[in-house]
């Protein structure tokens, strides 16, 4: 082995060991655990697919997967639609002097605790909260409407957080675009919409997809927001996993659910891999 190779291994080995110890090994253990079962309160290593079969048999389990997917896709789409214009305005409409402040304001929600922020939304959306009070004051509604403890509340809490994340990834992409692309498109007779549709949007797709993928991953695995804001009116996969662990200590079924969750994320990665540019973050 050459000196350079030894040095190369020296740099890579800590990260490799870290990945093996804290990702590969736990993943293998989790995979093996998902093939075990619980007989009464005893763990049995019978290496069967019974836990996966249970996912199909029990309506509440596959419904949890469906609910997680519906919420995650809704949040991702809404966040992209809201984040893109915001990133555009910061990149092209705000003077360079104020861009830093605008970015600072964009990431401000990250500075507060996730749990505190979720409880704050619960109060804002309550029957006697700011939203209902305002709607009643302007005469839009006569009686308070139920906003908290619903899917709407969960999606709102998520979108508030992920719009900021997507704004940053899209902004990072937009700011790298040379203004010559726009000028060239205009010179060739394209109007503003055509320039955006055929030039800017395709070039910023990596930023959108990268942000959307991160939103998807973080949203589908989140426990706190649906637990606090959703009011348990429907359960997501992480919530069902917590129930399996909290009372029953059913690690095999919880592991099977976690593997399903990871498979969905892996599928999302494969679907978006063409445009993913994580190195641009």
């Amino acid at each position: 082995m050459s000196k350079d190779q030894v040095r190369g291994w020296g740099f890579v080995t800590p990260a490799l060991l870290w990945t093996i110890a804290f990702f590969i090994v736990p993943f293998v253990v989790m995979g093996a655990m998902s093939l075990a079962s619980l007989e009464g309160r005893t763990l049995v290593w019978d290496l069967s697919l019974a836990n996966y079969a249970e996912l199909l048999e029990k309506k509440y389990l596959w419904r949890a997967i469906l609910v997680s997917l519906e919420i995650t896709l809704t949040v991702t789409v809404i966040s992209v639609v809201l984040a893109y214009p915001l990133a555009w305005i910061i990149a092209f409409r705000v003077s360079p002097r104020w861009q830093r402040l605008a970015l600072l304001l964009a990431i401000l929600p990250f500075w507060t605790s996730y749990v505190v922020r979720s409880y704050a939304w619960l109060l804002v959306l309550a029957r006697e909260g700011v939203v209902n009070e305002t709607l009643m004051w302007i005469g839009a509604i006569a009686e308070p409407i139920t906003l908290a403890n619903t899917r709407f509340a969960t999606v709102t809490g998520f979108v508030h957080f992920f719009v900021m994340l997507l704004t940053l990834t899209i902004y990072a992409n937009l700011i790298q675009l040379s203004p010559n692309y726009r000028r060239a498109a205009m010179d060739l007779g394209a109007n503003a919409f055509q320039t955006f549709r055929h030039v800017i949007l395709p070039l910023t797709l990596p930023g959108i997809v990268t942000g959307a993928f991160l939103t998807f991953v973080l949203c589908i695995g989140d426990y706190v927001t649906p637990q606090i804001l959703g009011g348990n009116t429907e359960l997501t996969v992480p919530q069902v996993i917590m129930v399996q662990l909290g009372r029953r200590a059913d690690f095999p079924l919880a592991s099977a659910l976690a593997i399903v969750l990871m498979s969905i994320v892996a599928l999302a990665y494969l679907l978006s891999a063409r445009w993913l540019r994580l190195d641009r973050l």
Partner: protein
Amino acid sequence: MQTGRKILGVSALALMAGNAWAEGELNALVWCDHTDPELIAPFEAKHNVKVNLREYEGTGAALALLEQSRPGDWDVLVVDGIDVFRAVEAGVLAPLPEGAVSTADYFPEVVMVENNTVDGVTYAVTEKFGYNTISYNSAKVDPADMESLSTVWSEKYDGRISIYDYYLPVMGLAAIAEGIATDAIGAGDLAKIDGVLSTMRSRAASVAGVVAAQTALATGEVDIVVGGGEWLTAVLASEQPELTWTIPKEGAVRWAQSIGVVEGASNPDLAVEFIKYITSPEGQARLATSSCFWGMPANAKAGDVLTDAQKDILRWDQQPDYLALTQLYPAPDADLDIEMQDLWLETLQQ
């Protein structure tokens, strides 16, 4: 040779240091009511020790944590009264020394020998109890309606109810509404319980944990919490006296928490002292009025320490009636437990 001696010397010092650390500390796996400094500080001062507390949620999580720990990591365990046998089965509780903790002054109904004893050996003692019943806002609902389970989740209160997010007490309440005793619940009763749960769920705005249920009631999001009780409204009593609770005529569910010494504890003697303190009138009064949640002390002598105002909030004088009217949590075996949990999750996903 000299190196070997050095290693031996350092090892001996390390061992001594380890013992000194172990003697000066007590590690307890507890519910949040034990984390109140007002409760723990007097014990630490008296014994000149540091009590390290770790909260957990759900017996399954506690047992998993204990099974993954090294012997001696934990000294004391606070556990749901109905789950003492599970902890004994898992081998994580040690027998309590005979006569170490007296229950002579306890409310007789909460001594619960059958819960805290396995094969004639006592592993734990009850330390606190209370009720999973109906909490409500007396300014928003008709208190008379809260005196019967049939009117609590009636159409009149559609969308104004939150259900406490723990399947055992809520299914216990559903069973009581159907005239089924909580200790007699079997797989054959689940269809009836399912009917009640479905009605309850269709009227509910949310299914909430402790903090969320308190927030929902306090902010007016809901006016009734099914499965609530003194533990939910007592800490809010001074600021919002309209938030109150009752036990309907059909009855309600009684919860109880027990405390025991962990098998292989580093400081078993200190652990027993801790349990003696917690079950003493002074410890019981502090535990009953913990800043996390209030509940009735198991030791009736705590009444000599509690103030009249505190006893009013706990409904001290009504306890004989309440104890007679309530039934302990359902304590299903492993198979029935899975069926009940599945039914609960199906209900939540409706």
